[in-house]
């Protein structure tokens, strides 16, 4: 249901999530991101994320809190229109930087 890849791009750690983030799959991302606060700058690449529910948002918010609490930065990129809508309606769009693509994000964050 979900596939997670970790790619290091210079000083930025890209976590690419593919599939669906619901209550059944989001614990996997939560576990994956548990070490994120130590990594400084995190980019969640959601270009191949087809679905997110409140359970997925919860994991994104938790990771954001952890990373910022440790003095780091977290951003997301590549939201498909329906996932973007969920970010907008939940108010996350004003909390977390959203970039159109990984390339755009890396150019801004580096």
């Amino acid at each position: 249901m979900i596939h997670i890849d970790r790619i290091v791009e210079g000083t930025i750690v890209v976590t690419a999530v593919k599939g669906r983030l619901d209550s059944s799959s989001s614990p996997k991302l939560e576990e994956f991101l548990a070490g994120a606060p130590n990594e400084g700058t995190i980019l969640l690449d959601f270009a191949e994320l087809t679905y997110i529910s409140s359970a997925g948002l919860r994991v994104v918010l938790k990771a954001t809190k952890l990373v910022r609490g440790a003095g780091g930065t977290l951003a997301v990129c590549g939201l498909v229109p329906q996932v973007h809508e969920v970010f907008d309606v939940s108010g996350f769009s004003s909390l977390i930087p959203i970039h159109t693509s990984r390339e755009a994000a890396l150019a801004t964050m580096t």
Partner: protein
Amino acid sequence: MTDIEFDLRLPNDVTQLDRLSTRIEAYARAAGIAAKPAYRLQLAVDEFFNNAVDYGYPDGRAGEIAIHVRRAGDRLELVFSDDGDPFDPFAAPAPDLAGTVEERPIGGLGVHLVRTLCDSFAYAREGNRNVKRLTFSLAA
């Protein structure tokens, strides 16, 4: 196109979520529903299912959750019912979406997303069941 209906009854068991999501996806595809309303339907069913399973049966009893979807003209009608304890999700106040990351509580967003993304919503306690009726515009 004639109306296409979807009917599914499930036990109140969290392991049923993947099966439920797969069935709803297949229905949306077969009924030719555009990506936007299909996503909103999927989200409503997912959030309600999780809430019913997590909070509706605090004594751990076995229950039955029923989902009925009907494509009618330019809209999609969802009837979601469960035999859990009485609970009207729409009576809760909307969460506070302002504030910083540090201030935002983790959780409490599901019902807010559903009620914001549907066109109409209603709750009724009918016999021993919580019944929620929602409609979604089929416009893409």
